[in-house]
């Protein structure tokens, strides 16, 4: 159970960091340090996303929609509106997950405090845009039609859950277009970001209240 929670919390945090890549940032093989420096300019971020889950068992992808909020140094909200309502919030050293049941959001108590603590330790590393410094993933950058950042898990246990993560940046503009998370040969998740807003005021209640 802890392993599962660690994984998806990591994923949520990772996606948050991915969005911190600023507009106008263009990467090459030596740009990880620059990425980290540029990320420091971002104080707040908000974005909508559309997630498509592809699996062999599905004739068409399972589509989810939601939004993401971030305020430095460690406040996160990753929320799904449909098809299932759920929210993951990290705020002041506490990470909580809520899901919709019987007309209201209820807290998911199955993860345990230990898993949350592990997550927070990971968050600290991700928050500064240090793609190449987290020992859990090996990071590489390739320039094709778009710029592609690939994160590959290092640990065997993690490889059993995730094969790799591909982050596609638009050429020159450097805006994150999409993220693909590969769990297996026929199984991947594609997240496309829209309406990215940087350094706009975000009410702290976003990280405290679950409606």
């Amino acid at each position: 159970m802890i392993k599962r929670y660690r994984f998806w919390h990591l994923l949520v945090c990772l996606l948050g960091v991915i969005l911190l890549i600023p507009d106008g940032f263009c990467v090459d093989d030596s740009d990880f340090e620059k990425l980290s420096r540029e990320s420091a300019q971002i104080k707040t971020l908000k974005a909508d996303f559309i997630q498509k889950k592809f699996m062999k068992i599905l004739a068409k992808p399972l589509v989810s929609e939601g939004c993401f909020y971030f305020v430095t140094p460690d406040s996160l909200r990753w929320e799904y509106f449909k098809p299932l309502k759920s929210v993951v919030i990290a705020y002041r050293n506490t990470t909580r997950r809520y899901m919709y049941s019987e007309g209201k959001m209820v807290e998911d108590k199955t993860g345990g405090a230990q898993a949350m603590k592990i997550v927070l330790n990971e968050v600290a590393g991700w928050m500064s845009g240090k793609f190449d410094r987290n020992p859990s993933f090996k990071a590489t950058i390739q320039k094709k039609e778009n710029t592609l950042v690939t994160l590959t898990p290092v640990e065997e246990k993690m490889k059993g859950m995730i094969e790799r993560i591909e982050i596609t940046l638009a050429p020159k503009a450097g805006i994150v277009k999409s993220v693909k998370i590969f769990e297996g040969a026929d199984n991947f998740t594609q997240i496309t970001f829209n309406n990215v807003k940087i350094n706009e005021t975000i009410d702290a209640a976003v990280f405290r209240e679950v409606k």
Partner: protein
Amino acid sequence: MKRLLPLLPVFFLFSCGALPVIQSSAVPLREQSFTCPFPFLKKPYRLVQTIETRMAGKTRNVIIGVTLIDPVSRSISCAVLTAEGMVLFEAASTPEELRVTRALPPFDSESFAENMLEDIRLIFLEPQAKLQERGYLSSGERVCRYLKANGDRIDVIQTKALKVEIKRYTSSGTLKRHIMFDKAEEDIYQLIELRASETMDYSLLMTLMEAQPVNTP
């Protein structure tokens, strides 16, 4: 010992005490050939459902279930995903084998896959069992009772509200599963509740998101 022999039927009768009595003789002649309730799939389908897990009356988790079922070959493929899209469990089964391709905690126990596939069969596939009895329960509901090779019994019940329920009993008459279809006829899979009697009782509330007929080659 011989003196005890006449008591054997009584022993068996009481050991099956939880199994409701079907009043076959109470069936009026004109109704003795009533059609058994059939909530099962007749052709291959792909079903996507939200599944709410409850224990002790409290919601424990909400996940997404994808199930691909062929009632002719009795083959099943299924997957369980989190709301975030992560695949927690994936398996495929035929009458010959069960193949688990992914199982993350807490879905990685040995018995989980077998129990899950068994529950899917119970809900969606016609029992591979002999129709043992049909008639009326004391509550007046129509029931068809199937006897499986392992001694388990499956009651398929039509309630007075014309909804269908399925109950699976062990060979000793213990109720293990109770499935309730909230809707009737073509919307029958819209909302399904499964109550499981195990060491830790639990229930699953399954709400249909998508149902797609599947063309077989």
